[in-house]
Structures are given as C-alpha cells and as structure tokens.
C-alpha cells in the first residue's frame, strides 16, 4: 500500500481532518490486516507490506488484547490449523474445552467432539478449508452442537482468516464458540442511563437477557407474578416495545451483547445457586423498599 493510494482514498470522502483520520486508519487496516500502529499508522502499514519484521512484537501484543476482547464478549476463540490441531485458544474457549461437554482436546492437541454429538470440529474445519474463494460473501460455516441430554448448546462459527500479506498462507481456521450458558451481565448503571430503568427493572432486564420467562422471573426472585408484570409493563413503556420478544430484541441491541457489569462472567442461570443468587436477594430486598416508597404498596413484598 503506497502513499499515493492513501491520498486517493482520502479524496473519496470529504477532506475534513476527521475523515482523513478515518481513511488513514482504514487504509492501515487494509494493508496490515486490521492493524494500525498509533500515530505512525501509515508508516507502519507501508513497512509491513515490505515484509519488515519490525512490527511482529506489536502484532503479537495486539493479538493478546484481541483474545481478551473476545473474552469480554464471552466468545470462545479457537485457532486451529487445517488438521484441526489447536494453535491458540482464549480463556472462554478454554472453559468450554474444560467442560468436556461439547469439544475436547486429545493428547496430540487435536480437537475432538465429546461423545454422542453429530457435529465434529474436524468436519467444520474441513468444510471451511475446502470452501474456495468464490464464496466471498459468506466466508464462514456455521454449526451447532446440542448437549445430548439437556438444553445447553453452542454455536460454532468457523471462518478462514482474511489474510492480506502473502506470507500468511498458514491454513489457519478460526472457530468462534457461542454458548447459551455463558452469561453476560449488564450493569444496572448502563441500563439506567440508556432506558431510565430503576434498579428493580435493571435486575429484571438481566434475567430477561438470561432467557428467563415471566414465570421463571417470578419464581427466581420469589415475587408475585403481578409484580413481574408490573415491572415488565414499565420496561415496555421505557423501551417502547409492545411484546416480550421485542423487549428482548431492544435490550440485546442496545447493551445485552456486551458484558458490562462487575465481577467475573458469572451467569445468572436458572439452575445456578450460591453466590449470584445471594447477591440478587440482597439487591431485591433493597429494591423492594425503594418500590414501596414510591407507592407500589405492599403488593411488591413476597408472601
């Protein structure tokens, strides 16, 4: 990527300093595969296309941060070669591997499927590597693994990394793992600032984002179904949604996909007992007092 090409792309948009900044980063991205180097973005991009190894260390550290970013989003990432041998995994993926429910690693470092599942990682990887460049719009393959007994499942999105530099014909395959049991907790501050939720509503929103139905919410929080309905009605009004499914969609789109609350990624799942549950009960006690103060009356209190 030469300097001339950069100025050509700059002319495409307007020539305000903001846009030129954006264009510069996107040019850096195009030449260095989604990678720029701070203020020397253009220079380093040009360097990299010349095959200079000077930035190797930097790419490595960026990759470490990228793995962490995926952890923050609760996405497992496995990088394998064409023979399904594991080259790199982030913490979330490690947790899924440790669970030995869906995917495991054998002694040789090759990914294997746990017993009884139809989809094998080898199969997915083979399908991705065999897909030629003609499927440009869809460079990925999807597969889902459902637990034999139980309702947990993970979705695998496999893709060939889009390499720009020609050295990188390593034949790596990216496997992104999405697990329905990996919870993302949304901070109540975020929900308050976006939708103006009260703390009780924010807590309810977190349960809704965990896939709990009205009845589940009422038995989990040990409150009356009418109270759940009351909170949900207010949430509908604040998010301008008309049904439960629409509320879920709006919550996910605005904040729910990103883990934004304190602590580790502890899920508030239906079956989970112990610390998260205790926390919720403490919070609930406080919220109920707030609720009755503002006039909901004693109907908020569990029987």
């Amino acid at each position: 990527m030469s300097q001339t090409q950069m100025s050509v792309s700059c002319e495409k948009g307007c020539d305000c300093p903001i846009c030129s900044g954006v264009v510069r980063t996107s040019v850096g991205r195009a030449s260095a595969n989604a990678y720029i180097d701070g203020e020397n973005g253009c220079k380093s991009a040009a360097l990299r296309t010349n095959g200079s190894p000077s930035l190797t260390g930097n790419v490595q550290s960026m990759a470490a941060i990228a793995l962490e970013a995926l952890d923050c989003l609760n996405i497992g990432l496995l990088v394998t070669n064409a023979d399904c041998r594991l080259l790199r995994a982030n913490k979330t993926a490690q947790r899924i591997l440790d669970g030995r429910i869906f995917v495991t690693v054998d002694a040789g470092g090759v990914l294997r499927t746990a017993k009884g599942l139809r989809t094998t990682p080898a199969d997915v990887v083979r399908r991705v590597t065999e897909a030629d460049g003609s499927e440009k719009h869809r460079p990925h393959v999807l597969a889902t693994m459902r637990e034999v007994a139980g309702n947990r499942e993970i979705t695998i999105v496999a893709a060939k990394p889009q390499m720009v530099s020609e050295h990188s014909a390593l034949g790596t395959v990216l496997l992104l793992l999405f697990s329905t049991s990996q919870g993302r907790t949304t901070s109540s501050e975020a929900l308050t600032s976006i939708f103006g939720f009260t703390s009780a509503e924010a807590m309810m929103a977190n349960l809704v984002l965990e896939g709990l139905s009205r009845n589940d919410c009422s038995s989990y929080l040990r409150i009356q179904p009418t109270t759940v309905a009351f909170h949900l009605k207010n949430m509908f009004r604040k998010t301008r949604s008309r049904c439960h499914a629409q509320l879920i969609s709006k919550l996910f789109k605005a904040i729910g996909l990103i883990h934004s609350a304190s602590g580790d990624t502890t899920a508030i799942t239906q079956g989970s007992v112990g610390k998260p549950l205790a926390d919720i009960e403490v919070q609930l006690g406080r919220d109920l007092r707030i609720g009755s103060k503002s006039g909901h009356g004693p109907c908020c209190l569990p029987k």
Partner: protein
Amino acid sequence: MISQNCNNSTALAEAVLGALDLLTAGVLVLDSSSQVLFVNRVAEDILSECDGLELVNDVLQIPVDGRRVPIQEIPAIRSGLSTSRNSGIVSASIRRNSGTPLTVVVRNAVSLARNENTATTLVFILDPDRPVGISRTDLHQLYGLTYTESNLVNWLMDGKTLEECRLLLGVRPSTVRMHLRNVLGKTGTGNQSELVWLLFKNLGLVGAVAVGNEPSPTNHKMIC
C-alpha cells in the same frame, strides 16, 4: 528474510485480530492517550459516520459542550477506569444527531499489564440502529429454515411484532402463526421470546456478517 517460525506466529496473531472483524459489535483498542491502536470493521463503519464518536488524528473523541474531548479524558470514564470498583468497566450511552444513542463499554485490558508503558483500553461500541439479522443460508444450514421462515426470523430479531411481520409477508394471521410454529419446532424453542433470545445469544454478535450482501426480501419471488 523472516524466519519461518516468526512468520507463523505473526500469521497466527493476524488471524486472531481478523476474528474481531467477524463481530457485529465495534471493538477498538486504545493506548493511554486515547490513540487508536486497533479498530475492527464495524467500529470503523460507525466512526466513519462522525456522529457521536469521532476519530481525529487517530484519537477517539466525544463531543462535549461543543468541543471534542478524548474519551479517556471524560471525568466519568477516567474515574471509572481508575477505580477497582466494578472491575474498571464503564458503560456510557452517547447521544448523536441521528437515531438512538450509541452504547459504549470501556474497560482496561489486563493481558499486557506486566508492561506499564503499554497500558491499553478496550472500547466496545453497540449501535442499536444497525440492522441485525442472520443470512438465509446460515439459517438454513443451522436449523433448516425455509426462505419465508428465515425472513420471519430476521424481522422478529430486528424487533418487529408478529403483526408487522404478517403485513410484510402479506399473509393471513393464521399463516404467519403457522410459520412461527414451524420455526419454533425447528429451533427447539417454546415461544417467540425464547426464539429471539436464542438467536441473539447464539448469533447476535456474528449474525449480520452476510446479510448486507443479500437481495432485499421484497424481490424474493424473482430470485426464488
């Protein structure tokens, strides 16, 4: 000449970075002075609109009272990142001229903490106005959904009610209910909310990878 070993590890690192481009959430990596070190595809898209969040000389800035402030200089974000409360995660909703506010989640990256000079911050951006959806091929591959069922699923995911979907499809209420029943059967879910939840949970962060390249649902008759 780069040695083979070094070459491979660079390729591996590039592959990992490329994984962030598959996501539908914007991801940015900033250094301690809000200089952008990395920007993924979606973040680049959102920033190119120069609305709410702006990139000036590679510094991520937010307009506050008519002037632009680097994101880490904003008092609430700075104090939030420096305190250990809430694990240094700050979420903010950023107003913009067009559409609903952007949601930004800022947190400290800890993987390089051993080196003080390379303190980095992760920024995630969610744009509620970006269309969400899963390509029909993917839905067919995963759950065996038909053409109409895939459209229905995408509209439901986008926050449309069943009645709105019915009008878009131009069918009777009983027909749209039949389609929904079939989708629920194929995905193994019990109701509409559960379906939307499952799709967001499984594919919400990668779903829209290919939707933009598909023909719009209005001319599906010709393509079929």
